[in-house]
């Protein structure tokens, strides 16, 4: 109560002083009355009363200090004063607030993305205890080129580990990277939901409570238990409106019935940030039956809680792990260590791996932008501080301490960044969710709650505080360091150190801008080059249907169904060509395939395995993949009659068939049978990109497509492919034997493959524009200010006969040196920072002439555009008018 009243009093010092005066005056008057009553005259009594009372002014001050927070009051006084100053100099204020707001907004948005995807812990008690088990993977490098850790274990191994772990609460989980088709009893509607599985003790280990019903228990680990499901709170609210009647309803997931038993705790949306899990089913029901007993199947992720100081529990698990693998080893046994990785922030999903580096890069660039804005505002303040030299001198002359002046100037800066911070939060609140919507592939959108929460708010406040010091302290120290004597004499040009600071800040600004432009330029160029990669096929106007058979069809029936389907589609209006394949190009599905080894007759088994793909007749025509020689498949190549006819790509010819006549070449393929299968090359096609745009084109064998289940149907249309989706879908499903599980276009598939690069290019371009805008404003302001300050000197020089070109040179060289220094520093710094980008760049290097030229040219021309007009004006000065002005 006391602190509150002291704060309140700090806000109304006038009222407080009036009250104090009244109280003291009352006392003096009472005393006077008493003295008069004792017989004194009026005037005697008045002076006696005053004498006895002491100095009211001093007493009031002392009471005032007791009743109000003095420091707060002085800051409030500064705030009021600063608001007046800021309002008076509207242009400077608006320029400063806007440039800071833009930069702070970019930073805050970047942080909010980083936080939601990478930094924020899972919403469970003590998330820091959570660990995920893994062991070093063997052999094959993943898509990123590194051998990834293996984080899936067999179920029997999980059981052994769980049962021997003491107090670690090990549980199993699966993560889903695609939707499951889910229907609820009583409704024909098919929903695409993300369904994951947990072992029975999962929810308990995570210490989550049910929002309704019950969660899994160990009893749910039994395959003969009643199949149940748990809904996420978000889905329960969305689909059932949070109604308790959802409990007990039946739902069908992947053809199996589950009864809804409960709803998970509010706020928990799965173990992987980036996606929302809608429902969980017990692991035993999600797994293939064979997985439950196979000691080698990679079936389940193992997580657990490893509280501090439980090293012995980890050691115990390592032993169990090693023993289990030795017991079940097939052939030679390699000891690998069991690893415990912190999972406090959730699953290290592919999604997070994909965007970790891009988001940090964006963070880095946004910090550089903040630095540009800071130097911008610092320059504005230094320039303005010079104009306020007289005010400062006057205030020092009448006794204000330097600390007091610095405080007032810093309050001014804090007001600027405070206003900017508010705008920045608004900006980030709009832009961060917008960026999130660009993160996921088109048909599996990412979910990140990138709004403004306490953490983001705190970050913005800390940023604003730091920027206040960064841009405010130096100008404040400079401005308050005036010598009252000099300044009051009216000569403010003598403080040459001020223009020194100004030049330094100018260099810094140029350096940061060059770095931002360099980095952004690399990202944009890299993306453009990626998009210009020759795919080997034409992506436009191709619709892709994933087709599945509704029932079981024998081979012959499948084959004829496929042929009929393709025939029908080819005949329909607007269709130019149609073909089918087992895998869609650039869909990222090639990764885990295990390809059979091959050899040439009489040769050794080749170490490199080719890629395989089964395609129908017409596939190459549809995708417009060039046939280089030989022939494509045709309807006479049925898998039964000519199983051995294959088509290979150019890379295959170059790698395995160099110098031979490729057509008619026989290739032996290793299969499960002891006798190798013999293939005959009947055609050669051009190389295409299968998985991603960066890959080396791999040798590939195309075989004849057999069957219709799970194929990808590619249809080249005459116009916008989306217009044909409905009619073609109807046609495919017309017979009732087939259904379409997924539709997309080939262009979308490729767009989805370069999501991270596209995001970086778009935001990089945006950031470059912001940086250029900021630096233009900054350079222009500073250079004009510098020119204005030299007017008098120029006037004298001209009066003394200096030629005008010399004046022009003088004015320009003033700016040229700091800009040049900034250029060099910026290029060096940018090139160093760019090494961090290397893995994401494509066919472009920071040291390329083009990469360097764009930022340098744009900054130099900006500097010239800013410097020339005032320099020209100065060189045309009429010396008399300047000198007379003084």
């Amino acid at each position, binding site marked *: 109560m006391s602190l509150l*009243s002291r704060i309140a009093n700090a806000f109304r010092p006038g009222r407080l002083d009036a009250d104090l005066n009244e109280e003291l005056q009352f006392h003096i008057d009472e005393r006077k009355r*008493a003295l008069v009553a004792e017989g004194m005259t009026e005037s005697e009594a008045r002076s006696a009363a005053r004498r006895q009372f002491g100095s009211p002014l001093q007493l009031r001050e002392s009471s005032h200090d007791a009743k109000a927070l003095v420091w707060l009051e002085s800051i409030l006084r500064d705030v009021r004063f600063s608001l007046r100053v800021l309002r008076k100099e509207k242009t400077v204020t608006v320029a400063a607030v806007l440039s800071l707001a833009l930069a702070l907004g970019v930073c805050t948005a970047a942080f909010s993305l980083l936080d939601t995807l990478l930094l924020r812990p899972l919403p469970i008690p003590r998330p820091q205890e959570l660990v995920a088990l893994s062991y070093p993977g063997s052999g094959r490098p993943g898509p990123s080129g590194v051998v990834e850790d293996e984080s899936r274990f067999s179920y029997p191994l999980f059981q052994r580990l769980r049962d021997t772990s003491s107090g670690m609460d090990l549980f199993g989980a699966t993560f889903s990277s695609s939707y499951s088709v889910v229907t609820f009893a009583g409704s024909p509607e098919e929903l695409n939901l993300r369904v994951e599985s947990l072992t029975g003790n999962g929810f308990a280990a995570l210490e989550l409570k049910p929002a309704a019903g019950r969660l899994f228990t160990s009893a749910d680990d039994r395959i003969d238990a009643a199949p149940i499901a748990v809904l996420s709170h978000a889905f329960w609210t969305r689909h059932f409106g949070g109604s308790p009647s959802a409990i007990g309803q039946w739902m069908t997931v992947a053809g199996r019935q589950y009864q809804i038993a409960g709803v998970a705790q509010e706020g928990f949306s799965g173990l992987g940030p980036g996606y929302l899990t809608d429902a969980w089913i017990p692991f035993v029901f999600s797994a293939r039956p064979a997985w439950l007993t196979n000691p080698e199947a990679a079936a389940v992720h193992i997580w657990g809680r490893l509280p501090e100081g439980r090293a012995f529990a980890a050691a115990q698990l390592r032993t169990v792990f090693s023993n289990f693998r030795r017991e079940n080893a097939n052939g030679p046994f390699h000891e690998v260590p069991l690893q415990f990785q912190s999972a406090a922030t959730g699953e290290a999903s592919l999604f997070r791996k994909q965007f970790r580096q891009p988001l940090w890069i964006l963070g880095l660039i946004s910090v550089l932008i903040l630095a540009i804005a800071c130097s911008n505002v610092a320059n504005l303040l230094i320039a303005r501080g010079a104009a306020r030299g007289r005010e400062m001198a006057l205030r020092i002359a009448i006794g204000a301490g330097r600390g007091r002046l610095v405080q007032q100037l810093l309050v001014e800066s804090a007001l600027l960044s405070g206003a900017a911070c508010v705008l920045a939060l608004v900006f980030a609140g709009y832009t961060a969710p917008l960026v999130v919507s660009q993160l996921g592939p088109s048909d599996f959108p990412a979910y990140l709650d990138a709004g403004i929460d306490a953490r983001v708010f705190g970050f913005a406040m800390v940023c604003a505080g730091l920027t206040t010091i960064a841009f405010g302290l130096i100008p404040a120290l400079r401005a308050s360091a005036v010598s009252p004597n000099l300044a009051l004499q009216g000569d403010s040009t003598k403080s040459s150190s001020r223009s020194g600071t100004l030049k330094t800040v100018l260099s810094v600004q140029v350096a940061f801008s060059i770095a931002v432009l360099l980095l952004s330029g690399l990202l944009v160029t890299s993306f453009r080059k990626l998009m210009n990669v020759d795919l080997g096929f034409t992506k436009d106007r191709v619709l892709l249907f994933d087709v599945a058979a509704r029932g079981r069809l024998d081979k012959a029936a499948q084959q004829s169904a496929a042929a009929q389907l393709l025939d029908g589609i080819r005949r329909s209006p607007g269709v130019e060509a149609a073909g089918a394949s087992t895998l869609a190009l650039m869909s990222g599905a090639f990764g885990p395939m295990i390809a059979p080894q091959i050899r040439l007759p009489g040769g050794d088994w080749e170490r490199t395995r080719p890629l395989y793909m089964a395609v129908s007749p017409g596939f190459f025509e549809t995708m417009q993949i060039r046939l280089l020689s030989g022939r494509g498949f045709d309807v006479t190549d049925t898998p039964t009659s000519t199983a051995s006819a294959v088509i290979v790509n150019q890379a295959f010819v170059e790698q395995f068939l160099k110098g031979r006549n490729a057509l008619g070449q026989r290739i032996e393929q290793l299969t499960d049978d002891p006798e190798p299968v013999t293939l005959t090359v009947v055609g050669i096609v051009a190389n295409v990109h299968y998985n991603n745009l960066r890959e080396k084109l791999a040798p590939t064998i195309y075989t004849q497509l057999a069957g219709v289940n799970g194929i990808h149907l590619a249809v080249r249309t005459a116009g916008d492919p989306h217009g044909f989706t409905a009619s073609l879908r109807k046609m495919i499903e017309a017979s009732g034997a087939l259904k379409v599980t997924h539709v997309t276009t080939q262009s979308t598939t490729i767009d989805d493959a370069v999501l991270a690069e596209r995001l970086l290019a778009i935001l990089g371009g945006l950031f470059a524009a912001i940086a250029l805008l900021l630096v233009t404003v900054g350079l222009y302001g500073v250079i004009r200010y510098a020119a204005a300050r030299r007017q008098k000197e120029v006037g004298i020089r001209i009066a003394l006969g200096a030629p005008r070109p010399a004046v022009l040179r003088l004015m320009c060289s003033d700016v040229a040196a700091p800009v040049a220094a900034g250029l060099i520093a910026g290029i060096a710094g940018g090139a160093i920072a760019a090494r961090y980008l290397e893995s994401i760049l494509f066919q472009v290097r920071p040291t390329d002439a083009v990469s360097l030229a764009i930022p340098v040219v744009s900054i130099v021309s900006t500097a010239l555009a800013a410097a020339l007009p005032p320099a020209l004006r100065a060189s045309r000065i009429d010396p008399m008018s300047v000198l007379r002005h003084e």
Partner: protein
Amino acid sequence: MARQDALQGSLPLLILKILGRLGPLHGYGITARIESMSDVLRVEEGSLYPALHRMEESGFIRARWVTTENKRRARMYEITAAGRKQLEEEERRWLAVTAAVGQILQNV
């Protein structure tokens, strides 16, 4: 000077005691009461106020404005519960200190 020294540190105690005994009073009233009861302890009148205001901020007394019979606004102080507790403690300490000092003065 002498009378101020005599009061050193005891002013808050006296204020609390007077307010505790006599109920709400304004500043002048407190001064008059101290004067009327002791000739030795004479307050330099103004110094009462900073002390009153500090005690008010500490929560030992609270104040409100009232209008006196001759239509002037006066600030009346009254002791709070916290003030009564403080009074007890201060009084005990004061008595202990003066007793100790007195004993030394007598026995030396």
